[in-house]
């Protein structure tokens, strides 16, 4: 018991006193002052808001129009730069169009081959990408151009690309029909048919008068 006296003393807080203590502790939980710079910060933020909302040199609607124009310009550039599909019998390339080289015939005329298309590193650094007569190379012989070759290619006239072997197809059309001629022979002459008479006075049946016959 005696040992509990201290325990009792520690907790001998009546209800009314506890309420007071609760209120005091609750008050202490918010008993702080804001920083002294609160006013300055508030006015500074107000001023920043004024500068932000002040009329800009360029109105906002102009920015939207400029953005739309930019999008349109990019779309137009993409459309213009799109690769043109090859027409019938004309194997042209961008390089040909740039260099002005004549377009390939479908039969595969000999054309100069771009050295950069042959293999990387073979292009002469002195700008010697001049067109030289080359044998035909299959399209599969084009290698990956290096960055260097691309740069050199851009600085000098680009010769035509390797000739493309025309594809040869076997004939697919069927053989023409062979219809045997039909001979029409004339009919043979028909024999006359003799009809025997049926009796005297009865040769002309139609003219016979039934009354007269009686």
């Amino acid at each position, binding site marked *: 018991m005696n040992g509990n006296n201290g325990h009792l003393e520690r*907790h001998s807080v009546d209800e009314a006193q506890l309420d007071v203590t*609760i209120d005091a502790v609750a008050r202490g939980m918010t008993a702080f002052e*804001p920083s002294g710079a609160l006013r300055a910060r508030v006015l500074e933020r107000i001023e920043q808001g004024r500068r932000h909302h002040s009329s800009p040199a360029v109105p906002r609607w102009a920015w939207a129009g400029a953005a739309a124009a930019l999008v349109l310009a990019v779309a137009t550039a993409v459309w213009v730069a799109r690769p043109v599909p090859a027409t019938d019998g004309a194997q042209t390339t961008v390089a040909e169009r740039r260099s002005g080289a004549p377009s390939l015939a479908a039969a595969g005329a000999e054309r100069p081959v771009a050295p950069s298309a042959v293999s990387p590193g073979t292009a002469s650094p002195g700008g010697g990408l001049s067109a030289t007569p080359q044998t035909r190379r299959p399209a599969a012989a084009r290698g990956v151009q290096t960055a260097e070759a691309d740069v050199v290619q851009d600085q000098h006239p680009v010769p035509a690309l390797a000739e493309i072997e025309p594809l040869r197809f076997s004939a697919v059309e069927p053989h023409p029909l062979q219809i045997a001629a039909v001979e029409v022979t004339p009919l043979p002459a028909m024999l006359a048919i003799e009809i025997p008479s049926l009796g005297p006075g009865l040769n002309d049946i139609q003219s016979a008068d039934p009354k007269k016959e009686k």
Partner: protein
Amino acid sequence: MEPVSTRGVSDPELVERARRGDDAAFGTLVDRHRTAVFRAALAALGTREDAEEVAQEAFVAAFRHLQDFREDASFKTWLLSIAWRKALTRRRTVRTFLRRFVQPPEDTEWQVPDAGRTQEQAVLDNELHGHIRREIARLAPKFRDALLLASAGEHSYNDIAGMLGIPVGTLKWRVNEARRQLRGRLAGMGYGQGLGARTGDRG
């Protein structure tokens, strides 16, 4: 301290001046109500950093909406309503929600006045205060808010009721209910009347 030019000028007059572009008048309003706004935000958020930020936001928002202020209510009540809404918005963020679990409420520097207390009594009182703080933090938000705002001493019951959007009677009920719940929890720890029966010492 307020400048002489605005000393004694009423809030409505300062509001009118601020509407006409007098920033100094609004600055005076800030000085007058900064503590009330800050403590209201602190009651909601529990940390001084968040309360400071919310207080700034509340004043800036009030300035921007000065034209919307109708003088049917006091400027202080209107301002506290703005601050409370911003505090609740911030309290709903995940970051603030988690912080309440990770970081306990600010340990108050306020101490029970050391008026004739023994050292032992001071230790016991501090222990009790710690229990009370922790139990207040565990209260449901509506009871905790009501208790902290009512106890802060900066707001009248009308101001608090307007801030919370509840009738004054409901506010008083919440405050009493908060105290009742706290007493019950503290009794479970051995505080309050009836402890003698718990410990079995009836002598």
